[in-house]
């Protein structure tokens, strides 16, 4: 069987890509769509460097057969636009050295904070248990998560104020 066409939403845009049925989504995102934030490291689902969000939840693209993404909503860090509160928190706290693990960390934290806006430290550690940072920035990454929670709360408050102002 030859390559097949797979359709999904990538960072808000519908896409159609060619892939072989036994290729992983990681290869397709990099080769067909030019995304460099998903990075193959272990290829075993362990390290988190290849993380993307599938319907809002983190998954390892290195072990996700590409055709399983059919009809799904895929988000990579490119789709966050650079000024997302989690990204701003990483910059402020300087929660990286080489930056290799950072996209996976940011996406995992984004999904966590959407589910649990005020996680305690234990919850943060558990959520990030499968994301490895070879530079050992873990403490800073936890701080960045806490800072991102604050920034997101501020953003929500401003939104409420804006909508209150526009209706009054």
């Amino acid at each position, binding site marked *: 069987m030859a390559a097949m066409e797979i359709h999904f939403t990538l960072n808000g845009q519908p896409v159609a890509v060619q892939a072989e049925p036994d290729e992983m989504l990681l290869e397709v995102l990099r080769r067909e769509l030019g995304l460099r934030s998903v990075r193959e490291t272990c290829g075993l689902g362990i390290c988190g460097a290849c993380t993307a969000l599938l319907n809002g939840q983190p998954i390892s693209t290195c072990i996700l057969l590409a055709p399983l993404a059919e009809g799904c909503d895929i988000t990579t860090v490119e789709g966050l636009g650079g000024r997302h509160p989690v990204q701003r928190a990483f910059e402020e706290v300087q929660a990286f050295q080489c930056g290799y693990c950072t996209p996976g960390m940011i996406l*995992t934290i984004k999904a966590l904070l959407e589910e649990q806006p005020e996680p305690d430290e234990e919850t943060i*550690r558990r959520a990030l248990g499968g994301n490895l940072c070879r530079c050992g920035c873990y403490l800073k990454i936890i701080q960045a998560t806490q800072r991102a929670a604050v920034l997101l709360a501020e953003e929500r408050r401003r939104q409420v104020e804006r909508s209150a102002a526009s209706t009054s």
Partner: protein
Amino acid sequence: MARHIPAWLAPTSLEEALELRARYGEEATVVAGGTFVGILMNQGLLQPAALLTLRQIPQLAYLRIEDADASGQPLLRIGAMTTHRALERSPLVQRGWPVLAATFALVASPRVRNQATVGGVLADADYASDPPALLHALEASVVARSLQGERLIPVEELIIGHYETSLRPDELLTEVRVPRTMEGAVYRKFRSRSSEDRPCVAVAAVRRRGRLRVVVGAVAERPQYFPEICALAEGQAPIEAALAREIGERYAAAIEPISDARGSAHYRRRVIAVEVRRALEDLNRIIATEGGSQRHA
């Protein structure tokens, strides 16, 4: 040499999936969450003629409580394509089967749990997985469907060896059925390396209608259960300290542990004795305080 590219079979109904399963048999690898299949393919260990995915079959992902089984107890029915994450976060499961929700939450990382399915982890029969030992101790069964009809297989008889199940090549695992926990249930996952690792030694202990069932996972090719050792606790509730220690030591002596990167056979044997004892202590505590079930990490 040209690489062989497998066919991608994506049925949208169970009936269609069963027909494909009958037609292809072992020529097609079933893909549920695809975590295990993905790793095998990455490593070049699997080159099937076809991949048969169950992902497009919505009727295989559900969590339902059936009113009562023959003994008047409610039964939890889990569709094979339910993800670990959906199960662990279900209020239905958290309320009625807390030990189950807590155990699935101990598997790997959130990423793996978003992808991996309840059917996949059982059909996989990996010796180092968490859910099999617990489901065995809870006396859960699976439904195996084929064009011929369906069979109900106790988890105890499903996993028969190293990555080996009693499913036939024309069958699909479609559902897992879990009876109510009753007096109490605990699961302890002992890891020797890191928090998101597979277990080095896993112990599930359940008390139902006065009978104890201790199942040790991740130490041999399949979950280990010794009814004759558990019978020592017959009619003993709580299990006193000396008996808990004795049961732990007897399990350690009865099991022939494997050696792997998570621990040598010698190390595992010592940990089994301690973890079984601790599981029984936990079980006493849980039955005394809440008459319910809980997990311990």
